């Protein structure tokens, strides 16, 4: 456990991706396979299913530390993290114990918690608290409450494993995908040099577009360009090789089992095919909001209800491999022609893979008109790709552009503030904003991001001095400061007092030039809503 705690501290105390990977690689190279297996599991986001109710853990901690509930609550608000609050409040350990390795803690203490009666749970947890201190105690609390997180992704864990074992990242990612279970043998297999599972699953590096900055005219003739909608989904490659399908997201995640509809349609693709496209939630021939896709992604298990409520499709916009031949150096127009032919076969009865429609461009005004209508198509703008462009590597300026619609914008007044969590603990960083309604202010959005650290500190100091009322951690502040908020969509919502819900609100800037009396009104929101519908 000590070694794992040291690894955790090393990752936790640096923002450098490289130092994190180094620390993990060193751990994987030196830890015993049994411990390393659990480290892989936890670091890449694995969580044993619900072991103990958080409330129970908090109660035991209050009793053990002799802190009354109200004071515990205050401490929690200051720290912003329950596991850490408990670790700080508990009395120092009383048992000076011999070191117990991570796998033993997990296998003989942690996992059994889920199956024993409350009394035994309590005994086991108190026992651990009396043995562990500092970071180890904090990690333990994170594990029992199912909230262990550290600033690395599965991708970085894969990179570290690759570095520690000199095995290709793609191979490790593939071996780790699906239902990998932690165990000494499985860990050894993970970094085994023999790679009979040759990397047939591997995607190509995604080619990325730049945001359009110039006037369209600067791009040359519109007839040299292909225009498509820019969808708000998950960029993915669908790979069909040797009779097997793999779906990789741009985030580097192998997501095959998340999208059974697309897997079914992909079986109709010829062998040796790689499609690039967007996984979209799609119902009744129309795109659904991204939030629906998130809802589905959030499910560990895909039941019939979520599959029916939020079906997904792949909108295919490029063909990277056909008949096992890499097409990336061919022109966009050539790849597109082949893509059209392939998609006819791949659509299948459920139409779960279909071709991304193009928008005819006779003049640049056609593009402008289409772009301004993006929201009606539930798209977030246009993609412009040169017809003669190859499928490049990474991001290169010049041949692919994304042209997103302007976000909605509202000047709103900050009315409530509360401290953030994690990195933002002790600072007021979560704000609620209101618009004017006659003399009253109607809250309509919460936003967390968009200010600089300096602005956050300045605002935090102001908030502490201009609080009208406190409800627990929430401060009702003087309605003075105006902020320009941006958001992506607006919907009617009976659940909100304002009657609207906005998507992805964030702070664009602090309007220090504007008094609250000049902030936008509820009417402005209603007008935006009407225009949406």
């Amino acid at each position, binding site marked *: 456990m000590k070694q794992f705690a040291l690894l955790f501290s090393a990752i936790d105390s640096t923002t450098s991706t490289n130092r994190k990977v180094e620390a993990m690689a060193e751990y994987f190279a030196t830890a015993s396979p049994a411990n390393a297996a659990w480290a892989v599991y936890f670091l890449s986001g694995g969580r044993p299913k619900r072991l103990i109710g958080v409330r129970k853990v908090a109660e035991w901690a209050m009793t053990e530390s002799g802190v009354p509930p109200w004071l515990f609550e205050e401490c929690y608000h200051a720290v912003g993290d329950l596991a850490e609050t408990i670790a*700080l409040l508990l009395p120092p350990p009383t048992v000076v114990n011999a070191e117990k390795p991570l796998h033993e803690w997990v296998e003989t203490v942690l996992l059994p918690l889920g199956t024993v009666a409350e009394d035994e749970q309590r005994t086991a947890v108190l026992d651990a608290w009396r043995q562990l201190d500092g970071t180890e105690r904090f990690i333990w609390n994170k594990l029992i409450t199912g909230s262990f997180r550290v600033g690395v992704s599965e991708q970085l864990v894969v990179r570290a494993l690759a570095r520690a074992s000199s095995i290709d990242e793609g191979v490790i990612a593939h071996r780790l995908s699906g239902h990998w279970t932690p165990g000494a043998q499985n860990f050894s297999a993970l970094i085994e040099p023999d790679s009979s599972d040759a990397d047939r699953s591997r995607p190509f590096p995604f080619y990325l577009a730049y945001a359009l900055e110039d006037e369209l005219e600067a791009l040359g003739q519109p007839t040299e360009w292909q225009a498509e909608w820019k969808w708000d989904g998950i960029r993915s490659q669908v790979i069909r090789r040797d009779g097997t399908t793999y779906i990789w997201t741009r985030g580097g995640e192998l997501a095959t089992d998340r999208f059974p509809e697309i897997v079914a349609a992909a079986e109709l693709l010829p062998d040796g095919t790689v499609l690039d496209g967007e996984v979209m939630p799609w119902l009744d021939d129309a795109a659904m909001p991204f939030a629906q896709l998130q809802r589905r992604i959030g499910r560990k298990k895909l039941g019939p209800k979520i599959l029916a409520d939020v079906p997904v499709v792949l909108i295919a916009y490029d063909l990277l491999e056909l008949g096992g031949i890499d097409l990336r150096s061919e022109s966009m127009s050539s790849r597109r022609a082949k893509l059209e032919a392939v998609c006819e076969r791949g659509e299948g009865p459920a139409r779960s893979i279909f071709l991304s429609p193009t928008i005819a461009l006779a003049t640049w005004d056609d593009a402008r008109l289409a772009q301004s209508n993006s929201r009606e198509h539930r798209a977030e703008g246009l993609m412009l790709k040169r017809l003669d462009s190859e499928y490049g590597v990474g991001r290169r300026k010049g041949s692919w552009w994304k042209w997103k619609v302007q976000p909605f914008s509202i000047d709103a007044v900050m009315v409530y503030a509360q401290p953030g969590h994690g990195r933002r603990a*002790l600072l007021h960083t979560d704000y609620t904003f209101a618009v004017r309604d006659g003399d009253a202010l109607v809250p309509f959005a919460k936003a967390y991001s968009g200010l600089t650290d300096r602005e956050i500190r300045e605002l*935090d100091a102001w908030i502490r001095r201009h609080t009208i009322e406190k409800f627990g951690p929430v401060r009702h502040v003087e309605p003075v400061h105006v902020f320009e908020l941006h958001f992506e969509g607006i919907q009617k919502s009976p659940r909100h007092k304002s009657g609207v819900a906005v998507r992805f609100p964030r702070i664009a800037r602090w309007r220090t030039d504007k008094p609250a009396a000049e902030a936008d009104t509820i009417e402005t929101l209603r007008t935006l809503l009407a225009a949406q519908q």
Partner: protein
Amino acid sequence: MIKGMLQLTERGLYCAAADVYIDPWLPVDRAIITHAHGDHARWGSKHYLASRDGGRVLRTRMGADANIELIDYGEPRTINGVRITLVPAGHILGSAQVRLELDGDVWCVSGDYKTEPDPTCSAFEPVRCNTFITESTFGLPIYRWCSQHETFADMRTWWAENAALGRASIIYAYALGKAQRILAGMLGADIGPIYTHGAVERLTNDYRESGITLHPTSPVVAQPKGTSFAGSLIIAPPSAAGSTWLRRFGDISTAFASGWMQVRGARRRRSLDKGFILSDHVDWPALIEAVAATGAENVWVTHGYREQVVRYLTDKGLAAQAIASHWEGEDEQGPAVADEEAIA
């Protein structure tokens, strides 16, 4: 506000009987200063009374023209019948509690204080009193300091690891008090001279001239051009973080020494490599113990977590109340701003 020896006015805590303020935040005729930190020792008053131990640092902070009168700890001064005594507060060099007595009624203003031993200042002495006015900067039970020996040992290990990698180690610490406490904690370490930022060096010299033994230091500015700082230890005020002043040091590792480092979020937010938990204020257990040791039946609480401390003490049967103050170097502005506070 209950009537008594002291009352809270818009200029600060005021003793009407002696016509004197304690740590006023606006200019007054007569001020008693508990210690030389900027939020307690403000410019512009006509006359200051302070402890002799802190005379040098106070002079550095207040300038040559300030009218400062120094008295020893325990040396009583009677003004209009009010017997005033300064008692060590253990916060920084010269820090004092102010004990006021009139007709058998005893009040004590703690200023900032800690009860842990500290070789750079006289140890805190509990004062028996009827009314105790305490700070509460770290007035939550999550604040429970680890042993300072452990912290200093960690500092040495951290420095040695950095030195092995050819990195300079930079510790951000308040220029008055914390910096010197670290220098005392490093005494005997095989580090060579510890380099200092100008703000730190000035006050460090005041400490030495006041008779405090510290690890040898050398100001960064005094080093010849092209000096390599690889493997050295440097102490700078928090305001130096992220500044161009750091460029000369090449590859660095940074740390902050403060009680706020107890909370993980506060450490991570600053993108520091290390947070050392080292505070010149009382932690929760020491605060509760210190209040009990005064035997006071009335407790006024200022600074940070005053509402929480008041509620806790009230539940314990004491007559406690929160009072608003402008002593906010490390409290009302919140920890985020506090660590930016450079000591002028």
